[in-house]
């Protein structure tokens, strides 16, 4: 057991990378060659460690999670929190996703960010992000996980606002940070509850004792899980805290791929899977999780229909797919949720990196002709297939995967989630509704992805005559990672092949030791036989229908370039403006809060009460008292003697009886 015990190396390597790159960013920002080696290099090192851990766990599956105790972090009376890492099947899966996809995205960034002056700073942040993400997935207790939870939020903020000279980007970073704080509040409250209930914050202890300590469906476990889920809605961009994620697209595209698609935003799903036994004990919370997931999946998918910015489409797609994952874990199909997390990490990272490749080409073209057109607006693209065949082919794979067309990876994971929701409907009819929403969202997903592909790669080119000459395929350092991700997206389904196609669900068996406590309580029976065939057939049909409709409507009529496009009206406008949710939040929460802050808190409390009464009032009191006492200080010895004697008399009166 060598690798499992040095799992901290997987964290230490990116940390070292962060320190080196951070130092270079401060003192030698022009040393790009060194940064290009250190940045991705440390990640590959972490990936090797993760692979080693995987192999070890494969050979000798441990019965209990292996806890690597590093140091005692919070030894306060009964609260004993160790800084320790937990190596088990679930954290190994996450470890591989984070370091594997992370390595590919780091490599891609070498090409994508090459010309950016903040190259070293970028890699420093990216390395730091991986450090915190690994702390998040490896933490053996809630507080250690919370370090990672907060750390990835910080890095997300830093990277969204990476080009902070533009105020919009800085604002997007702030928005993400602040909305995440709301969720973090929920996480903290949940931790307090857990501490009160269990007297410990270690996952192992909580998972082991949960069934004995907590009353199933009781108020305490419901409160704990709902607060945990509030944390998840913030971090994983679910209703009502999802609005920061589309804005987070202000960051560099590889960042969107790594943080806002593949890893950080799935932390909420990971948290639910990690505490599956708690959620299994709280059916109400689980239903809420599934309901919010289904609603988010559908809601975000509808917004994705009418976005023109290629990254915005993908952002809403991410929100929607995260909704699927929550539908899965809320249903009790924890393995399916994690499975979808993994496949989504592959194909969504691929989509984002492909979009990055497109934007890279578009940006170069517009840069060469000094045009100020929007390089991310799909209406300015079209027909790029001709110049970027590799990117097109790979993104097509990802599109088929996300649309749920067999045998691509997304089909298996999404189908499992929908089947689980359908099966759950037998116990709770409301899950039939969630299933319906999921199917509808799948249709819309296929539709908007077809629209994206059609607008970007097919039809007439709308980039502009002079720019067309500058369009080109991305360099190998960028397409290389795309190819690997394409491969994973295509065959990722083998991770958990259902019995239906003669496979055996490897991931399910692999994760069984972790998920078993929760699964034993939920007792979810997956459909078999004709029902299963029906569900699969329906899912495939829906996906194919969506793709067909998407390609047909988009290619059926010409798309005008962005500068000539007519304004959206009616429902399109509502969708394009994202249902005006941002405006609603602004009117209902932000403005009243700002008004209260300005009028009540600033002018009332701060200026009148704090400044007026407390600060100036105490100064005034001191001046009045001092002015009175000053009259005694005549400088005449006689007066002092009199005062002294009065005091002496006072004391004598007490001494002499």
């Amino acid at each position, binding site marked *: 057991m060598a690798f499992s015990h040095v799992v901290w190396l997987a964290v230490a390597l990116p940390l070292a990378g962060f320190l080196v790159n951070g130092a270079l960013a401060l003192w030698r920002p022009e040393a790009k060659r060194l940064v290009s080696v250190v940045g991705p290099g440390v990640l590959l090192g972490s990936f090797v460690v993760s692979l080693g851990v995987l192999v070890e766990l494969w050979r000798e599956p441990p019965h209990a999670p292996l806890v690597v105790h590093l140091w005692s972090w919070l030894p306060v009376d009964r609260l004993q929190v160790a800084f320790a890492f937990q190596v088990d099947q679930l954290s190994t899966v996450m470890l591989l996703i984070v370091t594997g996809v992370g390595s590919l995205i780091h490599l891609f960034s070498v090409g994508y960010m090459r010309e950016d002056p903040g190259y070293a700073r970028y890699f420093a942040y990216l390395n730091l992000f991986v450090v915190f993400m690994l702390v998040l997935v490896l933490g053996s207790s809630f507080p250690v996980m919370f370090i990672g939870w907060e750390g990835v939020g910080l890095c997300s903020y830093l990277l969204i606002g990476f080009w902070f000279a533009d105020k919009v980007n800085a604002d997007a970073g702030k928005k993400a940070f602040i909305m995440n704080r709301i969720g973090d509040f929920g996480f903290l409250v949940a931790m307090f509850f857990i501490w009160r209930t269990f007297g410990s914050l270690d996952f192992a202890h909580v998972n082991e004792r949960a069934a004995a300590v907590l009353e199933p469906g009781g108020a305490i476990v419901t409160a704990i899980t709902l607060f945990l889920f509030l944390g998840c809605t913030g971090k994983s961009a679910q209703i009502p805290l999802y609005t920061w994620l589309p804005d987070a697209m202000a960051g560099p595209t590889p960042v969107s791929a790594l943080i806002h698609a593949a890893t950080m935003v799935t932390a909420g799903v990971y948290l639910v899977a990690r505490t599956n036994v708690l959620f299994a004990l709280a059916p109400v919370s689980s239903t809420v999780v599934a309901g919010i997931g289904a609603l988010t999946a559908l809601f975000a998918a509808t917004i994705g229909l009418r976005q023109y910015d290629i990254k915005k489409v993908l952002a809403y797609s991410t929100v929607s797919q995260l909704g699927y994952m929550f539908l899965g874990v809320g249903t009790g199909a924890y393995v399916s949720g994690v499975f979808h997390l993994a496949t989504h990490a592959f194909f969504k990272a691929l989509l984002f990196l492909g979009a990055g490749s497109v934007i890279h080409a578009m940006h170069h073209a517009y840069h060469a002709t000094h045009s100020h057109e929007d390089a991310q607006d799909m209406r300015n693209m079209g027909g790029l297939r001709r110049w970027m065949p590799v990117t097109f082919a790979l993104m097509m794979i990802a599109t088929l995967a996300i649309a749920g067309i067999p045998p691509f990876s997304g089909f298996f994971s999404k189908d499992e989630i929908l089947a689980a929701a359908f099966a759950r409907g037998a116990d709770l009819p409301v899950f039939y509704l969630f299933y319906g929403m999921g199917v509808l969202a799948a249709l819309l997903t296929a539709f908007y992805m077809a629209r994206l592909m059609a607008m970007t790669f097919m039809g007439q080119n709308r980039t502009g005559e002079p720019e067309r000459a500058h369009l080109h395929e991305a360099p190998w350092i960028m397409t290389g990672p795309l190819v690997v991700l394409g491969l994973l997206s295509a065959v990722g389904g083998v991770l958990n092949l259902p019995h239906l196609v003669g496979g055996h669900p490897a991931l399910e068996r692999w994760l069984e030791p972790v998920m078993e406590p929760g699964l034993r309580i939920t007792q979810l029976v997956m459909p078999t036989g004709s029902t299963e065939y029906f569900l699969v057939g329906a899912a495939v049909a829906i996906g194919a229908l969506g793709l067909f409709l998407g390609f047909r409507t988009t290619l059926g009529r010409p798309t005008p370039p962005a500068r000539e496009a007519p304004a959206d009206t009616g429902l399109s406008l509502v969708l394009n403006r994202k249902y005006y949710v941002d405006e609603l939040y602004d009117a209902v929460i932000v403005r009243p809060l700002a008004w209260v802050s300005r009028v009540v808190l600033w002018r009332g409390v701060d200026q009148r009460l704090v400044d007026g009464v407390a600060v100036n009032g105490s100064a005034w009191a001191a001046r009045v008292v001092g002015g009175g006492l000053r009259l005694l*200080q*005549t*400088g*005449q*010895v*006689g007066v*002092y*003697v*009199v005062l002294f*004697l009065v005091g002496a008399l006072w004391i004598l009166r007490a001494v002499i009886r």
Partner: protein
Amino acid sequence: MLLGPALGLSAILFSLGVAGVLLRRNAIILFMCIELMLNAVNLTFVALAQLYGASGQIMVFFVMTVAAAEAAVGLAIILAIFRHKQSVDLQNINLLRG
């Protein structure tokens, strides 16, 4: 044994010393009043030494030494002030006033 009367006498002398300090403005006379108060206290020491043994008298010995030192330094200060202000009237000495 003359305990009560001696203590009473010392009370009267001490009060007279205080009265002098309060009534006079001449720094040297003030000083003499302080010496008077010290003497009153010495009298109580001696009176109580009848009961408590030699320690009281040794305390008087020390008080006298301190008083002598105080007189020497105090009078030197008064001399310095007089040189500076041509007066030993406390009304003219208000350097303590900030």
